[in-house]
């Protein structure tokens, strides 16, 4: 009896503290990263306090918050693409390919389409192109996954290389600006780009990014589709037994994932850049990766983290230059954050430090179970 009471008491204590634990789990790696990063800056001869103050000033004050918001939009969309795939236990690592291919074609045809078609129609056609191309890159890995059980970790990475190659071929071939010898697409006129939100320098592409965050949160947590995705991630075998058609859900999730990354390219090209160079790749996938896990694959939790990171990027790019540091310093912060998270994850297995960054979905990653011959019920 006493033992039971003891267990109950301990559970109650753990439960009471769980909100605090969640906060700890997110805050500790961020604070640690800031401290370690500061130490690194000091090592390079820069003043960390001054650097951080500059980051905040440049990233938030004046026009800063508007620039940060513009930077955040594609990052958020790529994060959504990763979140939906990771929740299903699918490692769609073809993000470079989806982004670059969609960006190249959108930037390549936008000057013509935007100039000839009515604005809304042109945007609709370009959106369709971006969705299709982004999804196309993840189609092959999805198809290979359900037909031959090839792990998408490997095939999506390889498909990504092919897509980047095709994008470069297009930019150096049919999509190249005939007016210049530099391999790049024609530049979309400023007046043809997405309009700014009234009273700001923030382009309208930011709106769909935030709307999609809310939509993704609703669908993933409140719909049968979202539940099926979580089931697939937690246990493919259980999902099959519960009647989930894995051989349809896997391609669906992979295609949506790729399509969302395609939208990120669309927003970037039509709202921010207006043209695409060959061999250009902003590397969004790796940049959002730590935050996607820090948010425990929740779109709503990822949004503020990624907005914060966008502020860091916006302010940090200039602040690093001012401090005479290489821009790669900002990437080192990402690696530091990942390392801190991994260490906290290891500690969290011994001590009550909130829930793992990897929900059951990804934690129990077993692509072996998705092999064709182990899923007879599914056929």
């Amino acid at each position, binding site marked *: 009896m006493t033992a039971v009471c003891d267990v109950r008491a301990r559970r109650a204590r753990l439960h009471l503290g769980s909100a605090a634990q969640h906060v700890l789990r997110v805050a500790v790696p961020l604070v640690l990263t800031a401290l370690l990063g500061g130490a690194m800056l000091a090592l390079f001869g820069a003043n960390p306090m001054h650097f951080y103050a500059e980051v905040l000033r440049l990233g938030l004050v004046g026009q800063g918050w508007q620039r940060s918001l513009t930077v955040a939009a594609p990052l958020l969309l790529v994060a959504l693409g990763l979140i939906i795939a990771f929740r299903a236990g699918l490692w769609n690592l073809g993000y470079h390919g989806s982004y670059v291919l969609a960006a190249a074609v959108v930037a390549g045809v936008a000057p013509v389409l935007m100039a000839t078609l009515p604005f809304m129609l042109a945007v609709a056609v370009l959106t369709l192109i971006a969705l299709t191309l982004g999804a196309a890159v993840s189609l092959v890995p999805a198809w290979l996954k359900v037909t031959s059980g*090839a*792990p998408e970790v490997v095939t999506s990475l390889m498909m990504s290389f*092919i897509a980047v190659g*095709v994008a470069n071929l297009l930019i150096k071939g049919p999509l190249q600006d005939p007016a210049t010898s530099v391999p790049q697409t024609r530049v979309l006129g400023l007046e043809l780009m997405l309009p700014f939100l009234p009273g700001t320098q923030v382009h309208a592409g930011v709106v769909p990014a935030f709307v999609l965050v809310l939509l993704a949160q609703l669908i993933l947590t409140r719909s049968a589709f979202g539940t099926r995705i979580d089931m697939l991630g937690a246990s493919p075998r259980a999902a099959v037994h519960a009647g989930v058609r894995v051989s349809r859900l896997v391609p669906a999730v992979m295609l949506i994932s790729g399509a969302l990354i395609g939208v990120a390219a669309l927003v970037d090209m039509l709202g921010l850049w207006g043209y695409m160079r060959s061999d250009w790749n902003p590397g969004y996938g*790796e940049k959002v990766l730590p935050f996607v896990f820090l948010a425990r694959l929740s779109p709503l939790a990822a949004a503020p983290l990624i907005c914060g990171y966008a502020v860091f990027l916006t302010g940090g790019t200039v602040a690093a230059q001012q401090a005479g540091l290489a821009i790669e310093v900002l990437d080192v912060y990402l690696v530091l954050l990942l390392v801190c998270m991994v260490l906290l994850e*290891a500690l969290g297995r011994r001590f009550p430090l909130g829930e793992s960054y990897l929900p059951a979905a990804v934690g129990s*990653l077993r692509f072996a179970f998705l092999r064709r011959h182990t899923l007879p019920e599914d056929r």
Partner: protein
Amino acid sequence: MMVTEAMLLAFLLAVIANAMPLLLAALGEMVSEQAGVLNVGVEGVLLLGGFAAFATTHVTGSFWLGFLAGAVAGVVLQGSLVVLSVWLGANQIVVGLGVLLAGNGISSMLYERFFAATRPRLGAAPAWLPAWLTELPILGPVVFAQHGMLLLGVLLTVVIGWFLWRSAPGLRVRVAGQHPATLDAVGGSVTRTRAAATLFGGVMAGVGGAYLALLVAGTFTPGMTHGLGFLTIATAMLAGGRTRALVLIALGYGVLVATGTALQFTAISVPSEVIAMAPFVVALLVIGLHRRSGSGLPPALATSYTRGAR
């Protein structure tokens, strides 16, 4: 166009040269995959190994020291996978992506810092075997006149094939990937076995990168691997522990790249992007046609082992 003997010889040389880095790296990746550890970041290890080897050989002039440096760099970088994933149980794919970024970033940053201004190149490796061997027809120039790493790599392939399937430690490696709890139950150490296999993967990826930098390219350029690391993972996956399949795939890759290079010397103009893409297209086709291409991978791949956990 006439195909001369010299051209055929050059083609053979190119096949071997391109196949070797893939073969070496895939050997290591295969052993670590069989033990249940997937390193998604082989590309990063190849790059760091290649840079370390290049820098060392450039400074010391010794190719063997270069290979040693490549191996050490590989062990150090892959060591992070051992510490974070094998010991601390962190997700292998997340850590692997970290390894990829770190290897790519560190090698690029160091190259920019020390070599970007001069862009030095290395000379050819000196012949080390007696003249009567290097003067043999075909085998002489293709094998014996090459750096000793070529023969060592072939020897290693044979040894690993034997080790994995015919020796007790090799059995432990495979059990660690097939069913780690069994290895634990019979008194083996899953952690130690996986750590050793992973570090071996680091050595081989480092040496593979070194081969690419020292003997194939003769220099280092940031990002010079162009996805070879991902082909390495695919190769190890398709081979599924069989070294013969590994050699065949590596040679097939060598033929593909050599053909692409040869085509550039002919009247047919093939964009370099197409040549860079071709191996990936072929690999995906092979994976697609090979109906159970994932079956060579052990069931416990990329999962961490906790005693008693279900």
